[in-house]
């Protein structure tokens, strides 16, 4: 591989506090040799082949902490190949795959399978998560130590929450010895039972049973109480309500150490978007009020929330063409994560550095992986974005196998031009 010189770009690397016009050098092994303003045309050899970025934004490849793959068991919804194509077109170079497959990723042999498939079929970095409990039944904890040694970066029951408080306290207690990361999908099953959308005026009008935001707050409060006794690496997968944001804010102010994430859907949409029973907006956690949405943005700004995820959950059309209560939950989103999140920048909700940090160095730090930065010597996983380019989301142009985007026909500003993985161009927009 020849050395590559990318020059005249707007380089953003929140981890290294780089936010400047400059360039990036990729060495012959696909590693980053230098990044930032020092990489300029004057400092490069005359015969070097230079790629002019024309002031386009260059960021570390996106790290998406919550993605459902479909392999094994649900290949008709998404496989590693289609996921890779979707992710790369959205600038995502690393994902944490959820264990809610069939069978569930809950033992060492499943991890071997996953790693092998990931290596052979995927063009992005797959960091598998395993389940917290066997078969995500919420009863018997999985082998945290052995699984972690095999390369599992996090433990979560994915779409399920650990209900049994005794089990949760023991999980947190036991996981601390292997320094395993515990990710909780915070929702009290009994309070949320039968619920379909946020509980409020909209649920009353649509006649759909509501999911109270208390269902989320109660689990977060419980787990944070456990954290005082059983310190472990604890992460709240997706916060959806204002109430939970204030609980987190308070706990962090008291010095508790943990992290939290939010889905781009909850940051960009609210319950009103459900309109006339749009099943593509049936999500977990549910879309809540505009007030909640604004509180989530505020939560990112003041550090209560650390990570933005796509919560990419591909579902085939058949499972969405049903009545609201029968339709599947979840939305496709890995390829629109970055462009949709740029809306928050263009609307002046978030500055670019903070926004990018929530999708690069912050998740990497929580996961304890060396990704999401432009460190010298690191693999060159990068993404080049035209942050002003207008485009319209169309499900027919999505690369994911499933087309259940919640933002069909939405006008976005900002599109990924190129994505590099390990120093090689893995995606290049042709139009």
């Amino acid at each position: 591989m020849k050395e590559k010189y990318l020059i005249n770009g707007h380089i953003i690397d929140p981890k290294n506090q780089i936010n400047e016009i400059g360039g990036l050098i990729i060495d012959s092994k696909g590693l980053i040799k230098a990044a930032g303003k020092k990489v300029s045309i004057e400092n490069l050899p005359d015969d070097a082949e230079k790629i002019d970025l024309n002031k386009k934004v260059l960021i570390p490849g996106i790290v998406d902490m919550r993605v459902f793959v479909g392999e094994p068991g649900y290949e008709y919804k998404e496989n590693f190949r289609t996921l890779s194509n979707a992710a790369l077109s959205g600038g995502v170079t690393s994902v944490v795959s959820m264990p809610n497959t069939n069978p569930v990723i809950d033992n060492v042999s499943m991890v071997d399978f996953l790693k092998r498939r990931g290596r052979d079929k995927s063009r992005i970095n797959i960091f598998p998560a395993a389940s917290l409990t066997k078969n995500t039944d919420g009863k018997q904890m999985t082998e945290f130590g052995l699984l972690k040694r095999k390369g599992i970066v996090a433990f979560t029951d994915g779409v399920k929450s650990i209900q049994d408080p005794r089990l949760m306290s023991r999980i947190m207690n036991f996981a601390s010895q292997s320094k395993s990361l515990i990710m909780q999908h915070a929702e009290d099953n009994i309070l949320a039972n039968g619920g379909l959308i946020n509980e409020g005026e909209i649920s009353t009008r649509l006649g759909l049973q509501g999911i109270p935001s208390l269902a989320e707050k109660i689990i977060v409060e419980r787990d944070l109480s456990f954290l005082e006794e059983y310190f472990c690496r604890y992460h709240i997968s997706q916060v959806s309500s204002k109430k939970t944001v204030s609980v987190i804010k308070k706990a962090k102010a008291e010095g508790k150490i943990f992290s939290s994430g939010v889905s781009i859907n909850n940051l960009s949409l609210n319950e009103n978007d459900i309109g006339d029973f749009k099943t593509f907006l049936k999500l977990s956690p549910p879309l809540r009020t505009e007030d909640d949405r604004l509180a989530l943005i505020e939560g990112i700004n003041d550090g209560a929330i650390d990570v933005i995820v796509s919560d990419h959950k591909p579902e085939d059309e058949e499972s969405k063409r049903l009545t609201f209560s029968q339709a599947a939950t979840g939305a496709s989103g890995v390829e629109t994560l970055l462009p949709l999140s740029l809306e928050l920048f263009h609307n002046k909700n978030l500055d670019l550095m903070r926004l990018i940090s929530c999708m690069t160095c912050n998740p990497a730090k929580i996961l304890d992986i060396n990704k999401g930065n432009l460190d010298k010597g690191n693999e060159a996983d990068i993404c080049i974005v035209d942050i002003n380019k207008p485009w319209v989301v169309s499900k027919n142009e999505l690369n994911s196998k499933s087309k259940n985007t919640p933002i069909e026909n939405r006008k976005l500003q900002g599109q990924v031009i190129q994505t590099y993985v390990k120093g090689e161009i893995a995606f290049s927009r042709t139009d």
Partner: protein
Amino acid sequence: MAIIKKLKAVKFNQNHLLGIQDLSFSEVSQILEEAKDFIKLNKSSSKKIDLLRGKTQINLFFEPSTRTQSSFELAGKRLGADVMSMNIVNSAIKKGETLIDTAMTLNAMHPDVIVVRHQDSGAPNLLSQKVNCAVINAGDGRREHPTQALLDALTIINRRGKIEGLKIAICGDILHSRVARSNIYLMNMLGAEVNVVAPKTLLPHSIEKLGVKTFTDMKEGLKNCDIVMMLRLQNERMQGSFLPSPREYYEYFGLTPDKLVMANKDALIMHPGPMNRGVEIDTNLADDINRSVIKEQVELGVAVRMACLKLFCKKN
């Protein structure tokens, strides 16, 4: 009948009757006006006309129903339509067919109107997007039951001459009730003041945003009311416990003479049925011919449904 003027010139915009929320004031007035003509017809010796001759009406009831289904069936037959009632228990739905596939199958038989009742809120909306004929909602989940509200309005107008300015109390299991929601929208639209009386556990979240006052003290809620609408406890929809016991419920929320005395002395008692005597209503009050219009509601239900079938069938 002050509020219902002849509005023949007004264009009827809706293709489907999915809920009161979608109707305009003039459309509601038109339905009620049409229904008035059918009240007379239904009392005459020859009840059948051929207004919908050659039209096909399919009743698609996914939930058990006695009065609504028979009312729609009779309404269609009196208008001369060919009425087919699907028996869901024996249908492909039980074999795993989706609502949309059922809709497509029925659609291929070229019906002019499908009357649907479904346990899922929004099911008629989904159906209406997939078929070429009119869809009439005969009750979906806990969302809407528009023809029930319309027949309630007709009953009140028949007795009181108007709805504007009346004070109406809707009492009971509001949380699970589509009848309550449709009536709240309709009575508000027609200018009534609506009180909602229920234990807090059976009040939907933010219900006051629909334009009602809420009461947990039934006597307070009934004060100076002209109409008292009672609702059934929908035990079959309840997950877990909402109330201590039927006895405690009856004590505080059952319609009894000592509570009714708070309402206007000529206040009418209504109930969409089926009634649970001694749970939400005193059995003597239910039968009080001076106060209870429960049987009249059933009678006018046929007229309202004839009006709806006429107006929505004609659209296509």
